[in-house]
């Protein structure tokens, strides 16, 4: 079972590489807002959802791909954990 910490690290590395090249990794914290600040635009969100699905073997329903579940690394890790536990 992957821990929330491991999920956060995996997603963090993906987002840093794809959308924040050159950024200091320490600047991207668990609670940095990603959707409401434009760090992830709508296409980026789709790609992050695809990444979460393939990386963690889960299915995210369209109605779950919303800002409440995806705005921060913490939100994403919680969504993934709850899916893995279900």
């Amino acid at each position, binding site marked *: 079972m992957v821990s929330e910490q491991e999920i956060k690290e995996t997603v963090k590395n993906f987002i840093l590489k794809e959308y*924040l090249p*050159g*950024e*200091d990794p320490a*600047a*991207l914290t668990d609670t*940095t*807002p990603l959707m*409401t*600040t*434009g*760090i992830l*635009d*709508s*296409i980026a969100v*789709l790609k992050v959802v695809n990444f979460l699905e393939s990386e963690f073997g889960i299915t995210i329903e*369209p*109605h779950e*791909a*919303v*800002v409440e579940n995806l705005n921060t690394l913490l939100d994403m890790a919680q969504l993934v954990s709850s899916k893995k536990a279900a």
Partner: protein
Amino acid sequence: MTTTALHQLLDLSSSRFPSRIAIEESGGDSIRYDEFTHLSDRVRDRLCRMGVEPGDRVGMCLRKSADGIACIFGIMKVGAAYVPVDPTAPASRNAFIFQNCAVKALIVEQRLESGLRDQFGQFGFAPELIVLDGVGAGVPLTAALERLDAVDPAPAAPSVSPDPSALAYILYTSGSTGQPKGVMLSHGNAACFIDWCSEVFQPNEQDRFSSHAPFHFDLSVLDIYVAVKHGATLVLVEEQLGKDPVRLAAWMAEKKLTIWYSAPSILSLMAQFGKLEQNDYSSLRLVLFAGEVFPIKYLKLLKSSWPHPRYFNLYGPTETNVCTFYEVPQRIPESQTEPVPIGKACPYCEPLVVNEVGNEVARGAEGELCIAGPSDMQGYWSLPEKTANAFLPGHKRRWYRTGDIVRELADGNYKFLGRRDRMIKKRGYRIELGEIEAALYRYPAIKEAAVLAFPDDDGVPIKAFASTRDGSKLSIIELKKFCSENLPLYMVPDHFCFLESLPKTSTDKIDYQSLKQMR
């Protein structure tokens, strides 16, 4: 029927189809034509009681909803012009807009009220407010009006019959100097376009129109007024849903929409990610798009999933509304790699293609497209110089200069080639790159900033080049956060590149040509 005043369209439809559904919200709540017109009358009465008079402006900071649309009609019924802003944009930008055109009253959602009040307070600006607890099916609006009536009843006021040149709405678009500018549009400006839509699209009361564009985006003019004119149902697409191609595609099929209108970007995304083959779109009879170039590969992909509707590319800046149109042929040749043309001029306006000095070019030569006719705007709010510069000098007739470079093809259609200036279109929104630069210059550590767009088939990524006072690199997260507090989200740069100093031309100006090479 010829349209005169926009709000009269509602009263006519409500007398013909009182019990038909006028507006349906994303979640399924709806209001009928008789309820809709009654609610807009109450808004009119309240505004009149607040002292709003014909010729005044009334601001709106509301999410798309039946409440919002009832406000639009109520504002016009009292003879005022509505000024809608993006409720997700920073309060500072919205407050600037309301103050700039000195709105007499403002209709606002409660969660946005204090942010705006704080901004207004700094300038001693205090419009009358109607505060809604939220939005949805007209319920919060009715409650707000009732609260006000309980203290100070608003007697019934007559609806005005405005002159066609009276302002109906002001839409603010990105301004190159860092502040948005207000495009003033009259009832007559919109009416010629709406009547043309009636002829070409033949809508009727059975139609179900999508309403995807927000109120502050001029695409909403077609959805709202053409649907209301014909007693059709306007099906609102809530903002989050409107950005999510997967949910939107399923929702569209479920709602059995007959007429879709949006910028191409969301259609491209639906074609790619929407799993369109899983749903039934047999009701869809028209797909209209406008606001930017539709990459041909995604238009082909969309047509392969939805082969049966008719497709139209509608073109025109906010200043002229739609002024050219092109019907996409049933089959796009496999070999076609160029986007579809913007088409021929709508019958109510006249096109003219001119060179740099404003002389007409030979047929088929490249030049700037100018448009004259009843859809041309009244001007920019309190910017007489900008207004004068927007029209061709030395002509008796008002020829609006679109800034778009075009060429007339052999078959008479115009092809869009690019821009004369630094404006771009992203997801249908107009963006002056200079407005983004002005925002970046407000970030204390930034010494120089230059912003460029690098369009490709998948979108229009915006890249900001910057140098800092101490030569260090800045946090991209911090900068994006800062931008999102000062600009609408669609204007936040996608990429940042830090340089020791920006390249300069021989006259010591920022050299955009060499930055262009640094894709």
